[in-house]
């Protein structure tokens, strides 16, 4: 038999797989232009009533006269150098007319919402799920199961609104809207993001809790758990070492996928709390069909998601030595 595959070669292999994936993603993002009905330049400029010079200018800016793959090549060569193009509609003097710059300003906001939501989800979801999974059919389990069923079914932006009504309008505990950068005032930053985190994190927490509960119940039923008892290990070793390491690994994958949902959810939540992140940026751009902005934001979120899933896969391989061989 071969000995266990090394984590290093697994990571190397996983990164190698990611590179072609990123190319496919970039191609998909660029192909968005094909979705535009009719003449893309005309559609982007505002349809039939568009100003002819605007149409011409857009056509030139996006190289729409070239063939598709030539356009893609040009676009990709710029993207690889960190140039995501210019907004079609903001005047060049505005700093955020450069898409890359615009994203650079907004990405930290979106990221802090999504990451905070994930942290919230784990803080709530893991312990409750573990409590439920250790004692299936106990009252604690029933409560967790019921609440998490609600959690996965609840639209996060509705929860956000309810939180605003409850915590900002009725009790004035938290500010209803707005954003303060962390560097300006950490306390204010925290206050402004707490509701978005809760709103986003609740659904994810419910998913995490359900997942860890199920996987813990499965794990406790495994032969090696009986071995652990037969060995005379202490109960806490049995639970916290033998059960949890195995039970957590499927949850890791779920956390990766949930992060994608959270990134998406952020786009709505930002609009509710007027947070200057990618979501509000994107919504503005969608309203005006500002293609470079839409492409830039879509590309960046996809890449962020891919990176998160890469990390998740590595973590998964760390937890499951067997996976490294595959």
């Amino acid at each position, binding site marked *: 038999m071969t000995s266990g595959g090394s984590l290093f070669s697994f990571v190397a292999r996983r990164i190698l797989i990611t590179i072609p994936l990123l190319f496919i993603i970039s191609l*998909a993002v660029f192909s968005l232009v094909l979705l535009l009905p009719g003449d893309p330049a005309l559609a982007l400029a505002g349809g039939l009533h568009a100003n002819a010079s605007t149409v011409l200018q857009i056509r030139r800016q996006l190289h729409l006269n070239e063939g598709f793959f030539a356009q893609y090549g040009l676009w990709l060569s710029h993207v690889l150098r960190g140039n995501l193009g210019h907004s079609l509609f903001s005047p060049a003097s505005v700093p955020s007319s450069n898409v890359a710059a615009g994203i650079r300003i907004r990405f930290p906001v979106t990221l802090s919402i999504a990451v905070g939501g994930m942290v919230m989800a784990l803080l709530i979801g893991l312990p409750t799920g573990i409590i439920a999974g250790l004692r299936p059919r106990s009252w604690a389990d029933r409560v967790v199961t019921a609440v998490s069923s609600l959690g996965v079914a609840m639209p996060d*932006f509705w929860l956000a609104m*309810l939180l605003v009504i409850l915590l900002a309008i009725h009790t004035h505990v938290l500010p209803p809207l707005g954003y303060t950068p962390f560097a300006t005032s950490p306390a204010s930053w925290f206050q402004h993001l707490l509701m978005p985190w809760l709103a986003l994190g609740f659904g994810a927490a419910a998913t995490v809790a359900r997942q860890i509960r199920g996987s813990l119940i499965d794990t406790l039923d495994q032969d090696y758990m009986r071995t652990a008892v037969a*060995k*005379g290990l202490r109960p806490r070793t049995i639970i916290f070492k033998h059960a949890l390491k195995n039970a957590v690994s499927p949850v890791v994958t779920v956390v990766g996928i949930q992060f*994608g949902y959270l990134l*998406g959810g952020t786009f709505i939540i930002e609009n509710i709390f007027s947070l200057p992140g990618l979501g509000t940026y994107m919504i503005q751009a*969608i309203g005006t069909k500002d293609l470079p902005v839409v492409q830039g934001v879509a590309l960046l979120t996809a890449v962020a998601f891919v990176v998160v899933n890469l990390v998740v896969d590595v973590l998964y391989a760390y937890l499951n030595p067997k996976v490294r061989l595959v």
Partner: protein
Amino acid sequence: MSTLLPPGSGDPIVMSSAAMTPEPASAPDGGGTEVVHSALRRFTGDPLAMTGLVFIVGVIVMAIAAPLLAPDGPNVQDLLHLNAGPSGAHWLGTDDLGRDVLSRLIFGARPPLRAAFQVVGGALVLALPLALVAGFVRGWVDMIVMRAMDALFSFPPLVLALTVAALLGPNLNDASIAIAIVFVPSFVRLIRGEVIAVREENYVEAARATGVAPGRLIRTHILPNVASPLIIQVALSLGYAILIDAGLSFLGVGEQPPTASWGLMLTEAYRFIFSSPLALVFPGLAILLTVLSLNLVADGLRDALGRERFGLKAARRRRGARRTEAVAARATRAEREAPPTSDHGSSTAELLTVEHLRVEFATRARWLPVVEDVSFGVLPGRTLGLVGESGSGKTVSALAIMGLLPKRESRIPEGAVHFSGIELTRLNAEKMRQIRGNDIAMIFQEPMTSLNPAFTVGNQIAEQVRAHRDVGRAEAWARAVDMLDQVGIPDPSRRAKDYPHAFSGGMRQRVMIAMALSCEPKLLIADEPTTALDVTTQAQILELLSSLQSERQMAMIFVTHDLGVIADIADDVVVMYAGQVVERTEVAGLFDRPHHPYSEALLASMPQLAAPGSALKVIAGQVPRPDEMVPGCRFGPRCDYAVDRCRTEPVALEVVTPSGGLARCVLHDQLTLKGMGELHPSADTVPVDDRSSTASLLDVTGLRMDFPVRTGALRRVTGTVRAVDGVDLRVPVGRTLGLVGESGSGKSTLARLILRLVDPSDGSILLDGTDVTRLGGRELRHNRRSMQIVFQDPYSSLDPRMRVNDIVGEPLEIYDGLTGSARDERVAELLDQVGLGRYALYRRPHEFSGGQRQRIAIARALAPEPRLLVCDEPVSALDVSTQSQVINLLTDLQARLGLAFLFIAHDLSVVRHISDRIAVMYLGRIVEEGPAEDVYLRPRHPYTEALLSAIPVPDVHRPAGLERIVLAGEVANPLEPPTGCSFHPRCPYAMDICSSVEPQPFVTSTGTTVRCHLHTSGPVLDGRPVTTLAPPTSKATAAGRLT
């Protein structure tokens, strides 16, 4: 199995209640399929799921009938009441434009529902063909599809939907198909995964072997089995689609005002969040409850459909078996056990004493006893064998000693377990913990699943040491390495850092032993520790256990179903049947003169020593389930000697021999039962009658199968494994060729090659003169009629969703065009041929025991009227008595129908019994082939000799000279096959030439072909070359020796 009674003999009440209860494990692998009638009944019995379903249907009806139900049109304005609260005219109030909220809510259900169904439906339409093709064709098609799915999966779903919807324009109707793309990857992954899993199931292979065309295969076998996870996923996706739709509408890229839709209503209400927050509640609740209902329906479906999928996972099945053996079924008859009897003398010296142990398991109705009045003792340094078929309660007894029974589902209402003066059954948890693993250790049947996959083996041993000894990490690790060394694991300090998956089954069992012995326990409980292993590995493990035991003066309880193993390792033996001890004695006593008819029957039904050509002794019927115990002797219904007295009163365990042997039989002083000597008189003359001279049916020449091996980051093909390497075989018309070898020898691959379930790399397979390797498509399917297969696992070889008449009838439809009652009539005839009645026609596989399922599989294989039947370990998963029944059936069928068999097994004694000729396979090659008796009694190849020697022979008086040959090491890594003779690294006779030159076939005078240098360039023994044989070895071990 008892759920099936012949027509007329069954009490209908018993039958129907039995059908609802789990059956006990009736095969070592586990017969624990829960008997479940229909998923529908389970679903309707689930209140949450039903509530969800009712709500969903209600919402759909409401949306369709909106114009009839809504008090107002969705856009009718009541300008006198803007943003009004609930009133008689507007039950839920009005919005900012004075529109009735209730009406808008009702109409508002339409867009999200329509969108959800369009989106999910569209996704299914896109995903289904992609996934089916990817999963069915595999190869580069699969690669491309899955990489594309990976790319799609890399977009956060909402972002993808948002982008697509935004560019396509704000009209959601057009966009919904585009949003469907969000769901395509998860559908494709799910369906493809299921297709691949189902494809590998034996029942799909069996269908292919029967000649089922790909279209029909997908339609009747794959899609139905993929359907249930898919339905669940669809329900969940509908809910998620509603959430996405609401989100998009909220962001203004979904439906546009003034349409009434839940998402838009939220947007509108949000503008007035400060003035009328209540308006937010209703649309949000509507979304929440709808999605919640869909999720509840999905959960309910998962519970209802999930349990029916027992065909799919072996592990789950085993677990189910254990649980059903444990949680026994609802009771049908009450029973009162006789008061505890006979204490026997030596208990003072005993290390462990079990007294009148009774174990009960919870069922819905009551506590059901599965072990009753079990008493035995273990003396220091001695081995107690606990033997019985599955369902006898031997494992439950062992687990009870260790306190490992499931806490809530079991209890020990009576009896005691004394260990060194401590009563274990009432001991507190911490004290018991200190004994477990320290004073009493245990090893289990499944070495593959008993070690934790997430930790290195060194870690797992060291933690046990640290749990019981006050030592540091380094010291515990050193102890772990030392223990690995003691159990014979090469290079222990490096191997300690490996994870369990890097070890073979035999090596893992060594690790388990190292772990169990790490704290120097006084008693080791071994629960079928070698059952899952090859016979050669079993021999290694038994030898290891014996030597470790004698070094330490450790006592041992050895649980097994194999009397051969008992003879080999035990000093004392307890025979269990249906939860009771039926006989308890010294091992020699049991084999020489059993005192319970069950013991005698067990001895008699062992295939090891049965005379070739004679029918195997069979114990009729099955072990009864815990809920159907008869009032008298539990073995009574199956006993050849039973008299009226046996049926009326419970039987006590009584002293039957001067040395204190006990038996539970009313006739013990009247019967003289047969021991090993009388049951299996040794044959002095060995007829080597070569029946193989008839015409060839199957002629295999130079058959080869290479698997590419991919390694490295780029997954390049870096080598090939020759699973089958130049095999020549011949099966004559109406004869049996037995094929034996350890796991990994390539036997099963060879079987699949011959049936063309996989395509060979080279060579020819002539069936009746037609080379099947050259056939394709329709021709091949037509040709399949002549050869059929019976698989090892009776649980996965029958499609769990089909009824027996459809399973057995499928080939009849394909080849004979039979349908309806004509088909069923023929199926009934076939069932009759395999010893099942017409009553089996309309039942599903899970209603049958392992042995009965194997009969159904045989009936299916017989349906196309084949001339060759390939039996791939058809009895390995069955209990001893069932095994004999199936083998007798096969021999009988051969005689009646003139079938030829290729009979594959790892158990040489079974193969010998049924075969005319035997072929021995090692690392993809046939190393020896010849007349069955010749190979069995006079093995020419050292590997054959070792295989024969490893069979545990139930002979307690084995002559000292006949020490077992224990092969060193394991089957070589097929990636790096040894040079020369591939067996030479393990061969006790290896010569210089063996490592460099590949041996050529050599034909002996008796017609045996052997590939071994001993016969061509070996030494001359006693003045004769080794190819001339010594006379057959003396009695008792019928298995031969190299001379």
